[in-house]
């Protein structure tokens, strides 16, 4: 199932989830009602000898019980959902996480950040912020957020310290698979909903504690006190019934996805030893993957490893550890300690150590380099392959990104990860070739950011330019993460500067457009709050105007010749629908501004619609079999605007602009 299919499937699962939830609540009310009726009848019949028949239909009590239960559950779910609006970062902080700074000097933190950055660039998503849970000695990790654009990754202290780089990469790849498979949103909804059910048990616990739990003096032990304790106990029991159902629901929804994420991770890294090694280390470590934080229970389904050994398999959020390892490494015999010892005795599979694989790695990244505009390779690019790669990055993408990042000079890398200098890097990326415009732009930088930033920009500009056109979008993606550390007012100033720099040449080119869609859009969401995305358009009909604008613009932008652009449009249109729904617009009628607006609307359509739109866009860009780097960047920016992560384009016949 491809990226779009799994997004749709995740959405459908949400409806099933709601049904399960309603059934669970109904059963809880029923149980509580039965207990209440039983208790009251029993209590009444003790007090007076008149035989009060056990009447099972007592509407007053039913009303009270159902009203109370529904109120508590609604409260709990509402509370959690409100909390979750803070997004992934909120959850990470609740679990005691601390956000890692991009320019951290701790070597372990640096290693983790590098791994996450590599994976994110390879997958085509923004680089997520990484949270470290300092107080958790176990090996575990999670990913949370509503879309790939606002995802965060959380990692336990134990993971940081115990795993090798390959194993770390395996775990992070697993988490990225969750992000790309549409699990995260579902997980957050689960979390919000189920918290209400858990609340009943929590309240019951407090009721029992509050009413003395038996330590009060015997004079208190009148009927009223006894009944309250009984009620509290009943609530605890009911709460545990609820907990049972909650875990059942979580398990039903999440367990299959764990196998899937493991499999995707192996595909992503092409290195089964990585994730298998991590799982084996979890088995060998006494702390395992357990979490100390109490909050973690409600998020248990979002983590890499399970928290506890459930008595009943059906209640576990994760498949059994041994089974997971055997899916990846069939020879595993269940002995964790031996496996870990063996792995530590083997020399680490660093790519640099093995000359053969180093050569292969070099060849692969050179292949990427060739495609990166340093030469012309004759391998055509195929829209089908590009679409298949959406949400499904492979080792080739990782290698390409790794090579690209390795080639960055250290000064540029440092600047890119430091909020102060990163602004200068972005400014340098926007500098025009024409001397007059460039001078004007530098004045803007000076006016907005000051002397020192101007010096930085001048210092970094030659370094940035030396990287070539293919590195521009990855640099922007890294910058997008670093600039999150700006304060809101610092961001405002920066944003104004970017807009002015873009305006300086009185026209907006493809890279500038891509930069705005990828950088500004995500940072705007970060600083002004993102709302969970709504799906408003389920069919093409509602958005055909926007799609026409988009495809027309792409056709015109890629081809100066009218006939060529018309042909590109027609190919795209053919790929799009059986009947002709798209109307080509004239060159003047589809400015990039309108494209931006169209994209904003298209971002709210269903995954199926997005797939077709993206497919058509890909076809129109690739129509003549040649993709320039700028077109490639534009295509990826469009994919990003639709929240569909598209990995870097490889094997393209590219001409540098």
């Amino acid at each position: 199932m491809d990226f779009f299919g799994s997004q749709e499937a995740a959405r459908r699962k949400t409806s099933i989830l709601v049904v399960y939830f309603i059934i669970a609540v109904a059963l809880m009310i029923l149980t509580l009602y039965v207990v209440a009726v039983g208790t009251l009848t029993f209590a009444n019949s003790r007090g007076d000898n008149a035989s009060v028949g056990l009447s099972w239909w007592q509407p007053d009590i039913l009303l009270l019980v159902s009203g109370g239960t529904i109120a508590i559950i609604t409260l709990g779910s509402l509370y959690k959902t409100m909390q979750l609006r803070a997004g992934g970062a909120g959850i990470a902080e609740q679990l005691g996480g601390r956000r890692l700074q991009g320019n951290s000097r701790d070597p372990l933190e640096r290693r983790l950040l590098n791994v996450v950055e590599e994976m994110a660039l390879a997958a085509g998503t923004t680089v997520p912020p990484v949270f470290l849970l300092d107080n958790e000695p176990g090996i575990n990790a999670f990913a949370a957020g509503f879309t790939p654009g606002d995802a965060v990754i959380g990692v336990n202290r134990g993971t940081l310290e115990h795993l090798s780089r390959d194993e770390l990469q395996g775990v992070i790849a697993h988490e990225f698979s969750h992000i790309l498979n549409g699990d995260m949103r579902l997980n957050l909804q689960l979390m919000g909903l189920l918290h209400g059910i858990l609340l009943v048990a929590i309240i019951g616990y407090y009721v029992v504690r509050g009413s003395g739990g038996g330590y009060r003096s015997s004079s208190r032990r009148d009927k009223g006190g006894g009944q309250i304790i009984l009620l509290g106990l009943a609530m605890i029991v009911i709460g545990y019934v609820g907990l049972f159902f909650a875990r059942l629901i979580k398990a039903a929804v999440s367990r299959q996805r764990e196998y899937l994420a493991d499999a995707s991770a192996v595909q992503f890294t092409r290195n089964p030893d990585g994730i298998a090694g991590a799982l084996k280390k979890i088995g060998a470590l006494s702390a395992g993957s357990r979490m100390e934080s109490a909050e973690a229970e409600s998020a248990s389904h979002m983590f890499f490893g399970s928290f506890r050994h459930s008595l009943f398999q059906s209640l576990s959020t994760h498949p059994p550890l041994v089974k997971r390892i055997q899916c990846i490494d069939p020879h595993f015999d269940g002995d964790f300690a031996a496996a870990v010892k063996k792995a530590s005795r083997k020399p680490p599979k660093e790519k640099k150590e093995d000359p053969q694989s180093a050569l292969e790695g070099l060849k692969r990244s050179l292949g990427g380099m060739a495609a990166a505009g340093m030469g012309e390779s004759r391998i055509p690019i195929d829209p089908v392959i590009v679409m298949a790669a959406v949400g499904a990055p492979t080792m080739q993408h990782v290698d390409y990104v790794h090579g690209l990042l390795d080639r960055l000079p250290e000064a540029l890398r440092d600047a890119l990860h430091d909020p102060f200098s990163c602004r200068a890097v972005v400014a340098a990326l926007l500098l025009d070739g024409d001397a007059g415009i460039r001078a004007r732009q530098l004045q803007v930088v000076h006016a907005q950011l000051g002397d020192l930033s101007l010096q930085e920009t001048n210092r970094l500009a030659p370094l940035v330019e030396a990287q070539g056109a293919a590195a521009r979008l990855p640099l922007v993606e890294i910058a997008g993460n670093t600039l999150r550390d700006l304060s809101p007012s610092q961001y405002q100033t920066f944003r104004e500067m970017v807009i002015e720099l873009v305006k300086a040449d009185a026209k907006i080119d493809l890279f500038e457009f891509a930069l705005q869609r990828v950088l500004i859009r995500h940072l705007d969401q970060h600083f002004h709050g993102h709302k969970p995305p709504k799906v408003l358009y389920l069919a093409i009909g509602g958005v055909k105007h926007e799609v026409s604008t988009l495809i027309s613009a792409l056709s015109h932008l890629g081809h100066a010749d009218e006939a060529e652009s018309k042909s590109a449009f027609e190919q795209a249109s053919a790929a799009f629908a059986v009947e002709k729904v798209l109307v080509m617009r004239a060159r003047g009628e589809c400015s990039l501004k309108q494209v931006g607006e169209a994209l904003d609307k298209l971002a709210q359509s269903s995954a199926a619609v997005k797939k077709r739109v993206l497919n058509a866009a890909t076809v129109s860009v690739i129509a003549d079999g040649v993709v320039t780097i700028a077109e490639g960047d534009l295509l990826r920016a469009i994919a990003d605007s639709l929240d569909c992560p598209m990995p870097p384009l490889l094997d393209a016949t590219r001409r540098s602009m």
Partner: protein
Amino acid sequence: MLTAILIVLAGFVGFIVLVGLICIGIYNGLVSLRNRYKNAFAQIDVQLKRRYDLIPNLVETAKGYMKHEKETLEAVIQARNMAYKAEEKAVANPGDPAAMKGLASAEGQLGGAIGRLFALAESYPDLKANENMLNIQEELTSTENKVAFSRQGYNDAVTAYNTKREQFPAVLLAGMFGFGGAELFEIEVEKEREAPQVKF
């Protein structure tokens, strides 16, 4: 009769629930703003530590040429160690008034000591020309800029937090929930305000 009681009870409970939800909203808002300034301080931490790491190198390089200026050099090392300690305290408790003021004053002292060192270095032409010295100077300048920048970010975040905390209705609950006021990071010594840019 029972129904009437139930309705009143329900209304009362509903009111409590509403108040509860509002309180939760306020609490979450304050937590979020507090995390933001704590995070902003983490960035200052990175930059300050980088600066502290540069200073021993600076002193070592200068020592070779300024053999008779022991006091000035030692003053720099001592100021650096004091600032390091003060910074550790601040990292443990970002925004705490005592810790922040301690750090600000220690940083002020350090800036003054470095400034005096550079002023003295004017009379040592060999030192001025030394390549290592020039590199360290450039790194120091660059780090100073970044410290200033991250300080600005931190102060922005602290101001946002303090404002929210002092407004109604958060002001009613802040004390109860344990949200103290956060302190800005302002450095008082003028010499420190400019990056020690000695024009050779």
